[in-house]
């Protein structure tokens, strides 16, 4: 437990009391590239934790191992105390490339997770309609993905993940294929959504600003091999206007601090 939290860093934090996801000794090697070396991590329930690091640090690999989409070479992942090695109903994934079915409407895409589970049509469409509205796409139910902008497509991906009512949402660089304006808007919406939805978010990003802006907790990974180098809990008040955060002193300091820490890995 203590191992993760006691790594030296500017703001070390005590181990969380209630962790929903527990990662123990996870390692993964691709050929002769060591992507992850014995990762121990706890993800607190109801919080948004970011996995942040330069490319090659294995953050997406770690997320996909938690999702059960990639098998680890060693170590375990436990969700609510139960070991998992495959995808499960308590986790839902938001994909970097959206992974929407181009032949299906927004409605069918959002309801797809429920469709696979055999929920009847009326019920799943009612649920989907609610989450489509939740992510701000009301009125677009009958549109096809190619009729939407990148930002709107990722909202569909998010609504699909929300509608299966998983405890843990896994987001793999969800905004990297979305343009800057839409990304800002989406990040603000995500902060609002987090307060409404009582869910745990695990968020992979390579953007320091993004991580600090939205996260309760930031796990910094260092590359080659991927290891946890630091855990930071930015103490930013997100209750007010989300616009204000960008000018918050603490926000700016944390971004700078992380950048100083990551600089050594960038050449």
């Amino acid at each position, binding site marked *: 437990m203590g191992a993760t939290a006691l790594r030296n860093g500017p703001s070390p934090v005590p181990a969380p009391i209630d962790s929903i996801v527990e990662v123990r000794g996870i390692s993964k090697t691709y050929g002769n590239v060591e992507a992850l070396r014995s990762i121990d991590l706890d993800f607190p329930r109801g919080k948004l934790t970011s996995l942040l690091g330069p490319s090659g640090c294995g953050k997406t690999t770690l997320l996909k191992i938690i999702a059960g989409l990639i098998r680890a070479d060693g170590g375990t992942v436990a969700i609510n105390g139960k070991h998992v090695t495959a*995808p499960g109903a308590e986790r839902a994934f938001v994909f970097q490339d959206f992974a929407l079915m181009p032949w299906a409407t927004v409605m069918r895409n959002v309801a797809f997770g429920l469709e696979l589970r055999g929920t009847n049509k009326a019920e799943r469409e009612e649920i989907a309609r609610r989450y489509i509205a939740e992510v701000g796409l009301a009125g677009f139910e009958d549109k*096809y993905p190619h009729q939407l902008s990148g930002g709107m497509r990722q909202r569909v991906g998010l609504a699909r993940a929300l509608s299966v009512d998983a405890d843990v949402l896994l987001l793999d660089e969800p905004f990297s294929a979305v343009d800057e304006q839409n990304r800002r808007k989406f990040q603000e919406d995500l902060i609002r959504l987090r307060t409404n939805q009582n869910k745990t978010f695990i968020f992979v990003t390579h953007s320091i600003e993004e991580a600090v802006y939205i996260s309760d907790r930031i796990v910094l990974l260092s590359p080659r091999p991927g290891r946890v180098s630091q855990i930071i809990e930015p103490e930013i008040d997100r209750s007010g206007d989300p616009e204000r955060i960008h000018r918050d002193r603490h926000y700016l300091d944390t971004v700078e601090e992380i950048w100083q820490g990551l600089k050594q890995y960038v050449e």
Partner: protein
Amino acid sequence: MAVSIRTDGEAAGLASPSTRSATGASWDQPILLRLVSIALFAGIWEVAGRIPVSFAFPTFSDTIVAFFGLLADGSLATAYLSTLQPLVLGVVLSAFLGVGLGTICGLWRTGEWLVIPVFIVLQAAPVAAFIPMVTFVYGIGMTAKTLAVMILALPVIVLNTYKAVHNVNESLLVMCRSFLGTNWQTVAKIILPDASPVIFAGLRLGVAAGFVGVVLAELLITPTGIGDLITFHRSRADYAEMYATIASIIALSTLTLVFLQWVEVRVFRPESRGV
């Protein structure tokens, strides 16, 4: 010249009333263009027939008259009754067998190694050369003709399906798995819809090849149906009737392909409607 000006006017007139009719406009306009294209073709045919290009080349109008003559005396209906049996049977069998086999090969490595090379060779081979062999083995009945259709139609359907299934969008597969899709659900809800444009391209080519197969069989194996009608009118130098028969089978083949496209857009890829 006149054609392009008229269609521009049509497009402007149709697009303006409301945005909702935009999809309707994009449908109407190609239909108009197609009609113009058919009219042009008929006109050139008529002129060429009147020159005449060859004594064995009837005019368009003579061919149309002959067509209605064949319709009236029932010979066309009789011919199609016998041609359509092996054709429909062969095409339907090829479609299901081909899509099934192609899907299995796309999903299953061993199947791929066993089956695909055979079809690659079949597709490359001048398959019409097999028809005498088919006759030798299966005689001159329905089986031989159905086989002739399938030999021509099957390879392209199998290979297209295989390629489409093999190259299915990887990220959609991962998505389906992450949302707990079973293997069957993955095939039915992700792989087949994702592959359907390429599968349907293969089906269209396969169906067209099936028409070739049935006509070849009727010209080479048993003088029955459409093949017989063509041979018969040629031997009597009724060129207008012969052309009418040929044109009718071309028209039928085209209509079948249009119908297939309609099914594809309706059932499998609704998002491409009006695009």
